[in-house]
């Protein structure tokens, strides 16, 4: 492996600085708490600002209104958003754009991507199904050819920000082949959707029942190898969530470190006791290693999406899951009775962890895939 393990240029560094500043300014905990109650879970004005700064098109070529920096550069945005539990449709919209980019024809890309890159429109992905597999090619939803299009039959789960979305990228089995459709949400007028109740109240997940919904044949993405595109989406999702998790783990860490310095028992700050101090050092080390793996994966992903990149992404997600599980657990425990309350911020991180760790593959899933790749 002659390639450097980590590369990060000045442009990326500037983006990172801007991302941290923005998220810090826009997402104090009061805002995060206030948004828990809202319908969409995010503020549309914030989304517009992100679009105006060009963040939504970072991983798109310039021809489609992007800046062509590559998927890896999104690590810092996802990490910053994770640390501050900041919910926007960034993840679903990015994945939808990646799907259109990887699988759409030139005309489809040109029609859909510029408005998504600018933030004018929002997209989401409907991939996951009740069977719960993270293998995107495992599909119970079917698309059958009809007169002017396709009839979709099946149920989708964890469709993020469905209520706010304008475009939905749906996966379905079509004549024994996986297929992707980029559908205007208006076409789903007859589909029934409901918000799912998930642990993480900062997110908005929906179940979507496609009971014979008809979509125009022009919706089918016809530009590339669909299996390849789905593999890319699995890795992109895992990569983005790894960055989110490492950020969130650090958010929980900073919160708990602060408490360990201020909360006093037996006449001393609890952080002076080794039963608190040593696990916090272990958590810090795990988070540092997680950050290293995320930026390592970013480096390899942008170099070329080969086997090495797959290894790096799966390693990053597996590790990020484990360190988040550890840190979220310690965050609750080290806040004592306060940690058991709904109002303690540790609870927000803990509940986020349950969602994020199980989105785009848990640690066991990724290690199972890694075994044949590294052994």
């Amino acid at each position, binding site marked *: 492996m002659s390639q*450097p*393990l*980590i590369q*990060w240029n000045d442009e990326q*560094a500037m983006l*990172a600085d801007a991302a941290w500043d923005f998220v810090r300014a826009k997402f104090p905990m009061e805002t995060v708490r206030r948004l828990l109650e809202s319908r969409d879970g995010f503020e549309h004005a914030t989304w517009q600002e992100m679009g105006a700064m060009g963040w939504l098109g970072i991983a798109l070529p310039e021809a489609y209104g992007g800046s062509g920096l590559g998927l890896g550069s999104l690590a810092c945005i996802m990490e910053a958003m994770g640390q501050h539990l900041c919910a926007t449709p960034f993840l679903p919209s990015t994945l939808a754009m990646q799907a259109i980019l990887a699988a759409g024809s030139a005309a489809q890309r040109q029609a859909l991507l510029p408005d998504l890159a600018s933030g004018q429109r929002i997209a989401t992905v409907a991939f996951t199904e009740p069977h719960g597999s993270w293998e995107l090619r495992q599909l119970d939803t079917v698309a059958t050819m009809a007169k002017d299009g396709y009839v979709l039959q099946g149920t989708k789960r964890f469709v993020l920000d469905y209520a706010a979305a304008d475009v939905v990228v749906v996966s379905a089995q079509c004549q024994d082949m996986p297929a992707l459709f980029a559908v205007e949400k208006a076409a789903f007028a007859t589909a029934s959707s409901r918000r799912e109740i998930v642990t993480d109240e900062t997110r908005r997940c929906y179940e979507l029942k496609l009971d014979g919904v008809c979509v125009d044949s022009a919706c089918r993405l016809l530009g590339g190898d669909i299996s390849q595109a789905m593999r890319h989406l699995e890795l992109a999702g895992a990569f983005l969530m790894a960055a989110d998790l490492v950020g969130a783990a*650090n958010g929980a860490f*900073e919160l708990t*470190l602060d408490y*360990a*310095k201020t909360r006093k028992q037996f006449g*001393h*700050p609890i*952080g*002076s*006791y*080794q039963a608190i*101090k*040593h696990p*916090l*050092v*272990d958590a*810090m*080390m795990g*988070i*540092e*290693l*997680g*950050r*290293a*793996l995320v*930026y*390592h994966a970013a480096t390899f992903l942008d170099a070329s999406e080969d086997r090495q990149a797959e290894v*790096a992404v799966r*390693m990053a997600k*597996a*590790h990020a899951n484990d360190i988040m599980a550890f840190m979220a657990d310690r965050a609750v425990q080290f806040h004592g009775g306060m940690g058991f309350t709904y109002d303690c911020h540790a609870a927000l991180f803990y509940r986020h962890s349950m969602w994020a760790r199980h989105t785009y593959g848990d640690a066991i899933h990724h*290690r*199972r895939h*890694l*075994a044949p790749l*590294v*052994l």
Partner: protein
Amino acid sequence: MEDALQALRKEVAGWLARNLPPRPAFKLPQSFLEVESQEQLDYLRDWQKKVYEAGYLGMAWPAEYGGRGLPPEHQDVVNEELARVKAPFMFNTIGLFWAGPTILRLGTEAQKQRYIKGILSGDDIWCQGFSEPDHGSDLGNAQTRARRQGDSYLIEGRKIWTTLGHFAKYMILLARTNPEAPNKYAGLSFFLAPMDAPGITVRPIRKITGEYGFNEVTFDAARIPADTLVGEEGQGWQVAMAVLAFERGVERGQAGGMVSFPLTVADVAALARQVHRDGHPAIEDPLIADRLVQFFIEERAFRANMARAHHERLLTPSRPFAPMFMGKLYGSELMKRLADFAVTIQGANAPLYLGEPSAIEGGEWQRSAMNAYGATIGGGTTEVQHNIIGERLLGLPKG
């Protein structure tokens, strides 16, 4: 510079292809902590000398003392090439990695002239006299006495666990010059003690592995010259802290080369292909395979984390020194768990040890697992490292 480094890499690779010594018939130690016999020492010393004479050691150390005065990136390139071909480690570790950089930073001109060259050539072997029978983790409480008498100091007391002490020409010695100082740290001074001074006795101590390799050093009114003092009397603690920063890799300035033969997860995976469990290669057991995958993840994360130290903008703003601080703690624990796992996968044959003809790979993994504690106990224990990192890096209050 990029071009110069590229050229250097090629040059070193060529040199190594011609000069890398064959593995000897006798067992080589894994690290300087395990050098036991004269033949091991001679082999390792010859290698260090050869590398130094080729101009590949101490490249960033000042030329006037025996280095080459080049930017540190040159030595980095050489180190990578040495690691790539699994070249033998630099056995004079205490001199090259800890004492040398400390002398260069805090020593007098005369001390730099006298000691640096011999450290690089391997002619002068160094040992470290910090720990005492009653004061290990609590190093600041060291009680070995140093009394000024004219042009010398008289040393009285005992040091213990002294690695390479039986071969060493010099010792970095922490001793108490003023027992009445306002606090325990202020009474300490730091010396570059000659080991052949009359009154010094070195007694080998047998290790957990059954071998020898570290020592007890007794000072019975041993007389050492006063100009071996580093800094002023009473500044010993500050000098010792500088040594520990180099020792733990928190600071850079080491001469170069590696401190051990690296143990890699790939080595253990190779073992898992050879060893059988329940009639199948161990690696086919999914539980073994998953543990190996976890080790691969940790190893990659550890290497990426060290690589990150070169990218200022990727360091965590609230704790930019984290990768440096955690290297020794995390690395030593990881290696210990890995070596222990290599024993575990051997199943029913795991107890077979060195000298037993049927032992798997000669019982070397068992020895490695035991020796791995050298790094989790030596140089500040894992527990004390947790305290230091919690307090200095994270700002948690002292217990």
